[in-house]
């Protein structure tokens, strides 16, 4: 997934089309570094995961607008996580991820996704080197645990 070596203009444009994950990796080589450092790889992985979560929330809100009041604040918190990883949300060209057939099913799916994300963030924090990244990942892990609990409890 990571772009290695100095990116060509075409490579950067392809990366931009593929999403900020690759763009981030490509940009990090501007300073002459041939390989992104380990923390960049962690940020890239977490950014990709946050993008997927954002897409799931957007698709769920589009399918069930009545859930927007509950889901939009959580969705926006994922956008803050993404920003802390140095990425921006991207507009997707495809139809987005599949959404549960009922509002309850969709909430249940999001709850499971948050639990998985919270577990992934613990692992990511273990791979990080800089104190700032560890700090951010610990708080993002905590945030996503809150999301799972809030969704399961029926409140945001």
């Amino acid at each position, binding site marked *: 997934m990571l772009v290695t070596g100095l990116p060509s203009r075409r490579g950067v444009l392809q990366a931009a089309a593929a999403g900020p994950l690759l763009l981030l990796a490509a940009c990090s080589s501007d300073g002459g570094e041939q390989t992104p450092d380990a923390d960049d790889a962690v940020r890239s992985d977490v950014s990709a995961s946050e993008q997927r979560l954002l897409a799931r929330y957007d698709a769920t809100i589009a399918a069930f607008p009545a859930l927007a009041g509950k889901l939009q604040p*959580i969705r926006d918190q994922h956008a*803050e996580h993404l920003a802390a990883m140095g990425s921006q949300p991207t507009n997707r060209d495809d139809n987005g991820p599949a959404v549960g057939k009922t509002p309850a099913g969709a909430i249940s799916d999001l709850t499971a996704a948050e639990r998985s994300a919270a577990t992934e963030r613990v692992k990511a924090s273990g791979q990080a080197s800089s104190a700032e990244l560890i700090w951010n990942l*610990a708080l*993002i*892990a905590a945030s996503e*645990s*809150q999301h799972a*609990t809030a969704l399961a409890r029926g409140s*945001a």
Partner: protein
Amino acid sequence: MSDQAIDNLTQALEGEYAATYAYGLIGARVSGGALTRARQALSSHRQARDELRFDLAALQATVPPPAAAYDTGGPIDTAAQATALAVQTELRLVRNWAAVATTSAGPSRDRAVRHAQECATRAVTWGSPSQAFPG
């Protein structure tokens, strides 16, 4: 182990002492499911406190004793005040544990992050909204 690591563990221990004190007050002001949650939280915080005392002792660092009382930000006479104290106590600990994570590695860091998650989750069960960066 760096001075910063010991400082972070010590701050977390102070937070867990304060939580243990707070839940003694909280438990006296709530009932039903909230009382059950307060008891479970008290048990978790006692265990975390003991882990931190153990960790500091293992590093041959000073293990501070608990204070006689901790600032609760005002009287805890009602269930609403008790619940607000629970939220505040848990959210402060999220930051303490995140700080411990920054100066630990391997299983110790994982454990610190999981403590941060547990405290953040308990804050939500006491009525806090979720936050992008809890605490």
